[in-house]
């Protein structure tokens, strides 16, 4: 309940408000019967004029609230005497505004919406540009405050599971949860017993409404899993390696033994893509309309599904590829290799953007969370590690699992699920998108067969597990984002809405060349090409048009403009500029010296060679 406005200094005590509420409504011309009530008496009508004059003082009282709309810290309630001296604010009717001034907004929420890094100082620039930058920054802050305010309107609260004191939530089994929750939620837990067609891979659509699964022995089905309405069920008579929904639930990509096939929601084969053969894993980038495929031959192929062209075919040069995941924050593909490295790929580059050595043995599974900050990997060395993806790629936490995890998945709120053998473990962190703590599992569940595929359902507290005995839909309270955005992915959308969304999504299809590690790079100044341009211009013109011309003293009034005084003034400005330069160079020098000195070591004879 962060969003509830905290009582400020100018807010009367709650008790008074309650008293006021209990009283019958009083008109402003009526005299108050109890003038002593908390000093809130409007007084006789003659005094009202003075009250009106007091109104302009309002900003003084609400000083802290006005200066920044973000409340920096919970305001300490002041002593009652002080409060009286401040004077309550009245409207014309004498009624008091209990929540005067703009409503306070908690800092953390505003921080979430802030797009400008406030720690960076504005560059030194012309006043015109600077004022424009400042205006943009102010606007940005206003927007983030407004967005933070709108959080109040969110309807749903996330789920949770808490044990009573001392109780371990991992011991709670699915049957207990099903018993404890409402019928609608209980219906979300189900098992599909499909022993015949072998281990299953599964995929939820982006809205979380539809589920597609494919068995090793050729069984492919898609259904609306909430209503349990079957959309299609076919047998492709070929091994199914992986299955994935394309941008909407109407299209389904299936990696079969030889080629990649695309089916529609009635099970009709639309395409057979022979340029993608022997695919092991599929990954769909919804904003770029790219289907990334990893093959046994070691190629990572990007297929643009909106135009049906192969955008890039990259040779990973690391043998068979069967571990792949996407980073939903920047659409980078992470491939896990048998030598223990995870490589990061974008279709614009022939070489990996980064290679991270994660494990001693081969990498078995990789997962990236929705904010793109954490990557979880598990390897043949039975380790489960979580890496920081923001720049350093350092491991944040690690844990050895007795069997090692074969499959990993992150939920929208940052829960990590790992499938080890026929057991699924889930770890949770503190709050949304925080690092899951690997000490104590949040939930565990034993299945009927070995786990073959894992995915959290978007916008539902459900984990879908495909295993050798069929499909299991597990209840994981607190896994999903409770409030969806209706224009982005709406589980309750109608056909018409879906069609409209599809047109809009296709219109703003992001080109594949724009995939890079930092998706916000496009909004930043391209310093390199700017400098290049500057250099070229200097070459072309033969001089730098941006340089300041040498100072020429302006002639002054009669008598003061002698040649000597002109020269003196000119000298003065030149000296000042020279001093500035020296100061700047001095500021830079000590940093160099500090670097040169070895820290905390005794002076040695070899120091003279250090530069």
């Amino acid at each position, binding site marked *: 309940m962060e969003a509830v406005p905290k009582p400020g200094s100018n807010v009367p005590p709650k008790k008074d408000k309650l008293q006021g509420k209990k009283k019958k409504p009083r008109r402003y011309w009526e005299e108050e019967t109890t003038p002593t009530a908390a000093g809130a008496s409007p007084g006789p009508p003659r005094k009202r004029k003075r009250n009106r004059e007091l109104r302009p003082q309002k900003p003084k009282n609400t000083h802290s609230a006005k200066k920044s709309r973000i409340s920096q810290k919970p305001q300490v309630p002041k002593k009652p005497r002080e409060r009286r001296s401040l004077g309550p604010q009245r409207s014309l009717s004498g009624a008091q505004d209990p929540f005067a001034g703009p409503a306070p907004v908690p800092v953390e929420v505003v921080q979430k919406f802030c797009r400008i890094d406030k720690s960076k100082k504005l560059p030194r620039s012309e006043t015109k540009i600077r004022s424009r930058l400042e205006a943009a920054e102010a606007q940005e802050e206003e927007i983030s405050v407004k*967005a933070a305010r709108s959080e109040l309107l969110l309807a749903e609260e996330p789920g949770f599971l808490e044990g009573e004191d001392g109780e371990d939530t991992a011991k709670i089994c699915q049957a207990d949860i099903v018993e404890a929750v409402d019928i609608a939620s209980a219906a979300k837990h189900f098992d599909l017993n499909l022993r015949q067609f072998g281990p299953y891979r599964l995929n939820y659509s982006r809205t979380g409404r539809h589920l597609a699964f494919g068995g090793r022995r050729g069984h492919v089905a898609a259904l609306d899993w909430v209503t349990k309405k079957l959309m299609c069920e076919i047998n492709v008579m070929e091994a199914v390696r992986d299955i994935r929904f394309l941008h909407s639930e109407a299209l389904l990509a299936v990696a079969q033994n030889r080629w990649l096939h695309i089916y529609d929601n009635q099970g009709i084969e639309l395409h057979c893509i022979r340029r993608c053969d022997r695919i092991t894993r599929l990954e769909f980038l919804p*904003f770029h309309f790219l289907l990334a495929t990893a093959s046994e031959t070691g190629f990572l192929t990007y297929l643009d599904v909106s135009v049906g062209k192969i955008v890039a075919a990259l040779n990973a040069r690391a043998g068979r590829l069967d571990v792949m995941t996407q980073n939903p924050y920047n659409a980078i593909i992470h491939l896990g290799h048998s030598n223990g490295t995870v490589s990061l790929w974008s279709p614009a580059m022939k070489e990996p953007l980064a290679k991270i050595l994660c494990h001693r043995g081969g990498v078995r599974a990789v997962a990236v969370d929705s904010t793109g900050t954490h990557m979880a990997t598990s390897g043949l060395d039975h380790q489960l590690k979580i890496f920081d993806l923001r720049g350093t790629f350092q491991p944040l936490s690690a844990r050895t699992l007795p069997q090692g995890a074969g499959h990993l998945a992150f939920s929208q709120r940052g829960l990590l699920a790992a499938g080890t053998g026929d057991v699924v473990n889930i770890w949770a962190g503190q709050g949304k998108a925080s690092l899951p703590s690997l000490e104590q599992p949040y939930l565990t569940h034993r299945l009927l067969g070995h786990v073959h595929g894992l995915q959290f359902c978007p916008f539902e507290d459900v984990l879908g597990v495909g295993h050798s005995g069929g499909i299991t839909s597990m209840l994981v309270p607190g896994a999903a984002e409770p409030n969806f955005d209706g224009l982005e992915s709406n589980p309750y959308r109608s056909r018409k809405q879906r069609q409209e969304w599809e047109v809009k999504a296709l219109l703003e299809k992001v080109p594949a060349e724009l995939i890079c590690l930092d998706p916000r790079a496009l909004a930043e100044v391209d310093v390199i090409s700017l400098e290049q341009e500057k250099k070229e211009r200097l070459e072309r013109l*033969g001089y730098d048009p941006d340089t300041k011309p040498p100072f020429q003293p302006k002639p002054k009034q009669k008598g003061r403009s002698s040649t000597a005084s002109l020269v003196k003034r000119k000298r003065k400005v030149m000296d000042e500029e020279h001093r500035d330069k020296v100061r700047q160079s001095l500021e830079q020098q000590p940093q160099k010296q500090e670097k040169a000195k070895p820290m905390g070591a005794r002076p040695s004879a070899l120091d003279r060679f250090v530069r």
Partner: protein
Amino acid sequence: MKVKMLSRNPDSYVRETKLDLQRVPRNYDPTLHPFEVPREYVRALNATKLERVFAKPFLASLDGHRDGVSCLAKHPKSLATVLSGACDGEVRIWNLTKRKCIHTVQAHEGFVRGICTRFCGTSFFTVGDDKTVKQWKMDGPGYGEEEEPLHTILGKTVYTGIDHHWKEAVFATCGQQVDIWDEQRTSPICSMTWGFDSISSVKFNPIETFLLGSCASDRNIVLYDMRQATPLKKVILDMRTNTICWNPMEAFIFTAANEDYNLYTFDMRALDTPVMVHMDHVSAVLDVDYSPTGKDFVSASFDKSIRIFPVDKSRSREVYHTKRMQHVICVKWTSDSKYIMCGSDEMNIRLWKANASEKLGVLTSREKAATDYNQRLKEKFQHHPHIKRISRHRHLPKSIYSQIQEQRIMKEARRRKELNRIKHSKPGSVQRVSEKKKRVVAVVK
């Protein structure tokens, strides 16, 4: 054990009846809206492309004159009315909504040199080659009456231009000297000269209404104050200025249309360097007019095109041309800042949109919101090379295109020569003169 599962009631997310609007819950959490910047970039790119697709500025051509259109005037009160004078002495009054001529007057023998409306909009003044100044009623003669001017002033010399004071019953004409007339009198209140030359145009300042500017054929621009009998100061440029126009929002700024293909925006207080040199035309600039917002102006040129310049940019943002439009003599920006009119040699007056891709007519609120959003996006990503290229691209007639190329080569050669001269002479002996200062010969007070 305490447990809560996420369980939504579908009734609060689905509309009740088919007649309702669909419910669209929003959540502005950035993690639910990934790729914000690339998606906005793509939207901006699409918006820029659409802007170019919908850029159809030409609206109408008003034909009826039997000779080239020599001057245009706006009606001060009625947006739809416009007056034009032709080279055969005919003045026509047009209705822009009907796109028809509503009234015709044979005003002069020979050219109509200048035309201006009175600030109240009831009458207008014309000057012609027959050495007369005539005042006419705005609405034509009654039934059975003959078309006659309200007043006629017979002068000694040819008048080449006229402009009316913005608030008082005073007007100014130019010819061999600048004359300031009271409407009630037949002789000028005062005449001002500075040397012997023929003055081609005179303009009253719309804000500081006592100020006048004129440009003469001996290459100078002279400023006058009506309250004094003598001129204030003048600036002499490299080549002749054809006309000037005052900025309607900034009293001290005016723009001069010059024969050397450029336009110069001057600050009246510091005439020694122009604030901005606007270059894009490839032939003499004949007329210039400011938009009522004072942020853009339009210029008409002998190169058969009109261009729109932002006041603070040296390059034009728009160029309008058609196959049939010949040398453009006069141009006006309408008072609602939405349209541009130009009169050209081949007897037509053309009506253009000031913003080429703007949709005319009433917009629905959603349309308006969408255009505003697109406008903002275009602004945000305007410096990206791909978007910049698309938004700057204009098709040009071959003649203009080849002339631009030619002039680029010439300019490059001049620059190279200057560079070489600096390189091969004693350091400091040859000073580099900026493009702005180069064209100003002298300022005389």
